[in-house]
């Protein structure tokens, strides 16, 4: 995977909400890993559904895309897809660079 930053443009008027938003995404990632380890597909589905809704609302399009992957993977009990999605999410959160406009 690349080390290049992934730029995300967020509305300036949401800037003060973003630190909490990002903290919650990191918590979410931990919860996703734990749920996968436990094989809790229902929790994974719910988490994926939530990511799908909230990500793009703030401007984080990939969070929504990955959320859909997780939701679909959980519905299909597709562990490989879930592992890939979580790995991609991990990489995304490590590289995302927020620009406020």
């Amino acid at each position, binding site marked *: 995977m690349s080390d290049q930053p992934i730029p995300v443009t967020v*509305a300036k*008027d*949401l800037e003060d*909400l973003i630190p*909490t*938003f990002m903290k*919650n995404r990191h918590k979410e990632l931990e919860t996703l890993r734990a749920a996968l380890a436990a094989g809790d597909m229902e929790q994974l589905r*719910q988490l994926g*559904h*939530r990511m*799908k*809704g*909230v*990500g*793009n*609302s*703030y401007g984080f399009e990939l969070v*929504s895309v990955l959320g859909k992957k997780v939701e679909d993977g959980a519905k299909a009990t597709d562990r490989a897809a879930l592992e890939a999605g979580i790995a991609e999410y991990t990489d995304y959160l490590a590289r995302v660079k927020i620009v406020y406009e």
Partner: protein
Amino acid sequence: MSDLASGQAAQTAFRVLVVDDDPDMAGFLARLLVQQGLQADTAADGPAALARIAVLQPDLVLMDVQMPGPSGFDICRRLKSQEATALLPVVLVTALEDHESRVRGIEAGADDFLSKPVRREELIARVKTLRRLHEIRKELEGRRLAAEVQRKDEIRKAFARYISPRLAERVLRESRGSEEVFRNLSNRAAVVALFADLRGFTRLSETVPVSSIVPMLNEYFTELTSAAHDNEGTVFSMAGDSMLVGFNVPVPQADATGRAVATARAMIQRFAPVAARWRAEHGLATGIGVGIEAGEVVVGNVGAPSFMSYTIIGDPVNVAARLMQRAEPNEIVIGPGAERLDLHDRLRALPGHGRGNGRARRNGGTAAGRWHAEGAAGDSRERVTLERPGIGAGAFSCRADNGATAQHAGTVAGDR
């Protein structure tokens, strides 16, 4: 100032409750709403939303569908089923492609949908539209309530001359579609009619100054009207010195006969001090004669387009008038139609009965079958006559002067 807040500064802020278990989504939506000059509150689940709605009384609810515990559909359905919140607009926040949720949302009564991920422009447009609709709805509701208050006020005023204010208030308060009670002014109904008139007034009016006659009549009618209204009777007419009062109309009264007898007694008792004063001042005796009869009549607004009167027409009214004419001063003559109802209870209610100062007798001769019960109450003496060709078995008992009880258990031949 934002689009939504412009022109609304003088008004109370439009209040939106955002319901979402994801704090980031709830915070995001609340932020966008506040930026539009609206007031935004949040709730993390359905039960919390219901509690906040009860306290905050928001103007709009934006609610996620998938939440722990009751879903957005459940809460929406509950809000729409309760009178207090049925008109509160609910927008369900669903994924754009989730058609099934939209159908379920419509079935649950949702007013609109907002797609996730939420687009700022879409949110503003939806809220703007719903705010306008909500304000129009509130305005219409306000007008409807004002019109209802006005209509009830008109009814109250129109009927104040017939029925007691207390009865009018009760009818308006308790009856759904109460105006129909008054508007449906042409129907057939079972009523108890009471006719009362003033005995001795003709002679009295020949001796008192003309200027005193009207005030005296007004004093007399005031007492009689109060007696009628205290018992929730409807005053149908006053003519000369007579008055017609109806019971069981315009609303049903289970104890209509009892009310009529109580009214008659109250009329006699209330008028007694007035009669005593008139006697002292003018030297002539006056009293009240009352006739009561029950039966089916036609109730309606009768008259010309330029002058109408709410009245009752029928044989029981005519019988009550004839009984009134036969009544001696301070006598209540009860007709056969009214007698059929709770005879024993009415006799037991007589002032003489059970207190040892009354008497009951059965008249002989042409008055066979007429039972009188007399009693004293304050300054008045009153007598009740039950007039009926055949009284029937197991009817009543009255206590006589000497304490003996006069029993009647057979059929009494009538004098009519």
